[in-house]
């Protein structure tokens, strides 16, 4: 089994999930609570990876971070090397690719918090940000957990975007799904089947635990 690829995928999925947690919570908050009319445009952009072929997304990311773009040039000046075919470049692509899997559950859960609870909190002198921290976040644990798990699982299984942006460098950008593809290409069906089975089991366990968690998390004992 290609343990290097598995370890790389886990690192990539973890990093992507952390970044999405940091970016997704404020973004979801803005989508839910902003009074702006045009916020539907932002929602549409966030949801794009759900319908776009990964190759299309990967292509644009590749162009955007490549040496011809200002972003790519600025990064190259600072870091001494370009973004394409690096772990960082892959991370950027993964974050964009898994964005809806984090932001949508976050936003759905924030929106389901009874607005009168927020008004009650404000009337008690608690600021909007504090209210978000003390009321909205604790009441959105399910949605946050769901978003985290889905982003992790989704990143673990991504293929097309990685191929476009990352290429196939062992230990740097060669993830599990690429490794399976390689194995099949070289007719090593035994290796492909072992890794595929592992991915299947891990994915199933992750989803099963998500659903069980959702059922039980707020069932506190009655007094």
């Amino acid at each position, binding site marked *: 089994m290609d343990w290097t690829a598995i370890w790389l995928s886990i690192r990539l999925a973890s990093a992507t999930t952390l970044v999405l947690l940091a970016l997704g919570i404020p973004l979801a908050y803005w989508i839910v609570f902003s*009074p702006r009319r045009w916020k539907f445009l932002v929602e549409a952009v966030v949801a794009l990876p759900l319908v776009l072929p990964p190759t299309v997304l990967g292509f644009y990311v590749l162009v955007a971070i490549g040496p011809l773009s200002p972003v790519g040039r600025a990064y190259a000046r600072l870091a001494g090397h370009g973004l394409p075919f690096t772990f960082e470049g892959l991370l950027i692509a993964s974050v964009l690719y898994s964005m809806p899997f984090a932001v949508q559950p976050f936003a759905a859960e924030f929106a389901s918090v009874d607005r*009168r*609870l927020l008004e*009650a*909190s404000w*009337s008690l*002198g*608690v*600021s909007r940000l504090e209210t978000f921290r003390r009321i909205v976040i604790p*009441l959105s644990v399910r949605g946050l957990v769901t978003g985290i798990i889905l982003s992790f699982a989704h990143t673990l299984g991504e293929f097309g975007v990685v191929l476009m942006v990352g290429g196939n460098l062992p230990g740097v950008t060669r993830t599990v799904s690429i490794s399976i593809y390689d194995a099949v290409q070289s007719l090593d069906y035994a290796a492909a089947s072992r890794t595929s089975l592992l991915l299947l089991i891990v994915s199933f366990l992750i989803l099963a635990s998500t659903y069980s968690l959702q059922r039980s998390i707020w069932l506190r004992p009655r007094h």
Partner: protein
Amino acid sequence: MAETASLTAGGAALRVAVAQRFAGGFAIDARLDVDLRPGSMLVLFGPSGAGKTTILRQIAGLQRPDAGVIRFDGDLWCDIEQGVWSPPQSRRIGLVFQEPTLFPHLTVRQNIVYGVRTTHRVRPRSDLGSSDTGKPSDKVRPRSDPDLTVAGIAKVLGIEDLENRYPRALSGGEGQRVALARALAPDPRLLLLDEPFASLDGPARVRLRREVRALLQTTGTPAILVTHDRTEALALGDTVAVVIGGCVRQVGPVSDVFSHPADAAIAASLGIEAVLPAQVAGSSGGMIHVAVGEVRLQVAEREAFAIGAAVYACVRAEDVTLETLSSGHASTRNHLAARVISIASEGPIDRVTLDCGFALDALITRQSRDELHLTPGADVIAAIKATSIHLVPRL
């Protein structure tokens, strides 16, 4: 548009003059100028959909009017023309909704103390990005009872034993008590109650009303209550503002407004009834005796009333019958010597206004009027059955 003069000194003046249009065509155009004495209750009374809750939410800072000014106790809370808007956080109000609306992930105790620590420190920003003139007020009004801490409030409301429960394990009445304790714990300058008893069943509602009244008088917090329940308005209100179609139509002391509605629309929403301030004088043979000034009335009420309790005796004009002095005895318990003040024709029915120690209206047919030879100044007997008088306790 009745204006009330400031009733007494020492209260907090509330001035509201707001306008707001809604997509459906409904519009609020409300003016209100009242003095809220410590512990007193202003009732916003009116039919459902009249705009009472909207006015309350504007006072709370949760809804912004299109135009207008809101002032309370020397602070400018809202002046749309000047771009002044203080967010709810800086108004130091307490708010209780129709449902308990407790934070479900916090225990009863955590709910009650939720606003206590931050109230005087947080400097929130305005949600709409306008100039934030709402500075947290430094005017801390001392409680009339300095020992009344959070624990004290919990004790008055009888919820000390619930401290470690979660809201889901509370009954409706308990939940509303906790919501009330939570609103009062940071010592607000003004308590806003949006039909807080509406979701409770009868006995729980009566009990909680009484406790709210007692609590506000202990803390000295003035309150505004939104309700469409006239019994509630009578029981709790000191001043009532009648809201119809988005406008405040009449403001004044409760018994004045209920007994003397300014026009027919107000009368229709209040229910046409004389509302007489009275005191329970005693009871005998299942009858309650109440004193309305010098006059005694006998009332058949299922509920028990303590002697000395302040009540409103409500009498509908159609339940008052008139007799001449020579009439014999009937089953009617109350026979009051009265003088006819005026007679007004309302179609085939005449409204006879009487002075029987207090003002009272009677509705009679024109035929009866002729038979009784009624003219202004005539002496008659006003008869009211004991079962037709309804008592509302004043809390």
